[in-house]
């Protein structure tokens, strides 16, 4: 009985959204797409996503600001930021934080898929412990 995990992809590059979702759908995830921060927030209110894959640089609200709002809506959401630039600071922050990962474009898909699975597995393990809500990165 496999649960279909819901994943939201947010990127202003529609083609990237499209082929990323094609790949992930093929891997059996349920995908929603948003092309900017506002739509991402709308989507977030409608569905219970496990993971959000989001670009940092976007028109309107950027990825980092959107991220804060998404966290308010669903504190348990895990977010993977994808970016053409990756500054050292982001990397450091994302290293031991299950809720926030940073991946550089162009994406190395093998490790990316593995990363998603890893996040979902950790979520599953921590799921029974209803409180505290903050997930624990250690196995």
């Amino acid at each position: 009985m496999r649960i279909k995990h819901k994943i939201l992809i947010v990127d202003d590059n529609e083609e990237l959204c499209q082929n990323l979702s094609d790949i992930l759908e093929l891997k059996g995830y349920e995908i929603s797409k948003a092309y900017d921060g506002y739509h991402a927030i709308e989507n977030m209110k409608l569905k219970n996503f496990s993971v959000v894959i989001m670009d940092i640089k976007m028109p309107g609200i950027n990825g980092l600001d959107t991220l804060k709002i998404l966290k308010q809506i669903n504190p348990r959401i895990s977010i993977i930021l994808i970016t053409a630039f990756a500054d050292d600071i982001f990397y450091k922050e994302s290293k031991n934080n299950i809720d926030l990962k940073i991946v550089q474009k162009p994406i190395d898909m093998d490790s990316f898929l593995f990363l998603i699975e890893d996040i979902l597995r950790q979520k599953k393990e921590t799921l029974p412990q209803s409180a505290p809500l903050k997930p624990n990165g250690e196995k």
Partner: protein
Amino acid sequence: MIKELFIRNLDIIFLLYGAAFFCMGVAILSKRPSKESAFKLAEPIWLLAAFGIIHGINEWFELVMLIKGYTSTAWNISAALILTLSYIVLFIFGLRLCALHTNKSLNKLILPFISLIVILLIFISDQPASIWPRYFLGLPAGVLCAFGFYLYYRDNKKILKLLKSRRYFLTAAIACGVYSILGGLITPKANFYPACIFNYIVFFNFFGIPVQLLRAVCAIILSWAVYNILAIFTWESISHFKSALEEVTSAKNYINNILKSISDTLIVIDPSSKIKFINNAGCQILGYQPEEIIGKPATKLFKKGTLLKNKILRNLIKKESLNNYEIDCITKGKVKVPMLFSGSIMKNKNGGINGIVAIGTDLRNLKNLQEKLISAEKFAVMGKVSGIIGHELRNQLAVMRNAAYYIKMKLTGKPDTEEKIIKNLNALDNEIKEADQLIDNILTFSKTKLPDLKPVDLKKILLRNIEKIVCLKETVLTTEIDKFIPEILADELQISRVFINIILNALEAMGNVGALAIIMKVSDNNNYITIRFEDSGPGIKDGDKEKIFEPFFSTKEKGTGLGLATSKLIIEAHGGSISAENNAVKGAAIIVKLPVKLH
């Protein structure tokens, strides 16, 4: 008894008498007070000299007559004529002296008229000849002179008092006054009034001394007074000289001050192209003491042949001046200093070349600023452009890579999939990865910011970075570092990147097999730290020595050609230099030079 003594020695009295006046005349003439003197006395005083000399001669003439016993009328008339002449001169002097006070000159006809009458009387009258000039010329002339000296003193009281000449003027006035009576009123005996009463014989009988003796005493006193009066001219010329000297000195100081306070280099070169003058600023910039460089050939200040090249001197001579010419100077410590020169030819009166005056501005600060500005701008533009390109390209590459991945996913495991399709998809993926790597390098290169300068220990930085590098067993890495390496201002992260870039490059160049020696030492008079990276690889082709530091130049099969370019950018931003050469035996060397002190 005494009377007899006087009578017998009358010749000596005449001698002294004549000598006193003669000496006065000579003294005045030898002093030759300038006509431009502020003392107006200077103008007529030559007349007093003339009187002195003529009258002195007159006395000696009478002396000769006395000794030789010449008593003929001709001799007497001659003596009287000389006497007349002397008194005319004294008369004129007296008139002119008084005129200095009254500013009015007497009717010019009076004196010639009197003189004429006197001369006529000398020839016509049967009275002793000398009576006439004495009465009509000697007496008034003496009185005029007495008044003249007194009035002159009164008019110039302040300054003469200051010069302590008061008593001399008064003495001269009194001497003249007494002399006018003794010389003008006491005459040879004649049979008319007043000569019948006031004459030599009566005088001699009454006073017991001959009138000539008293005249001689008067003459000596007058001479002494005049001689001392002349001191005012000496004082004047000394004070003139002093003030002139002061003027010259202050003008010299003024010019010296101007030259000293010019902050640019000022050089004067003589026609034999030797340095004739150099100001303080010039000495400071060029590192010489003035005495070390003055008199030396001007070419010493420049690189050999600089002045001949570009025909600088020829142009300068042709056009007489040359503006804003950039020339590199060489300091005493053999450091090149870019200078902006303007020069012009100094000509002498005849139009010949007297030398060259050149003013040079030190361009180092300007150049540094310019370079900093240019590199800052370069950094900014590069950062912006490559940032945009990098971001855009990465997004597109991301789509491509995902697409390839998707297709591959779809096809994998299907029995009828051709192996070639998968191969091609893999090739696509690999190329995208390569392209991404290139973007990465460009971003590193362009994101190189201006260095964040802090005091650092280069020795520690080097050793720390060497530790990070994993060497194969076949590689021998040695270091040779000076005991004392001063701290310099540098950006540690950037310098680390340079060291790693160069070391990795060297290791790659020799295929990770061979020896890499790193030598760090203080060089260039303690002004620089030089780090040499010597590998034992194949070396660099002659034509490539400059090119290897250009962006995107690579001799490696897989290299973006940005490692050394980034290094160059960083080192130059630190005010240093990077260069390459081949070792004497084998392999190449990269030489990094960093300044100990930033300019």
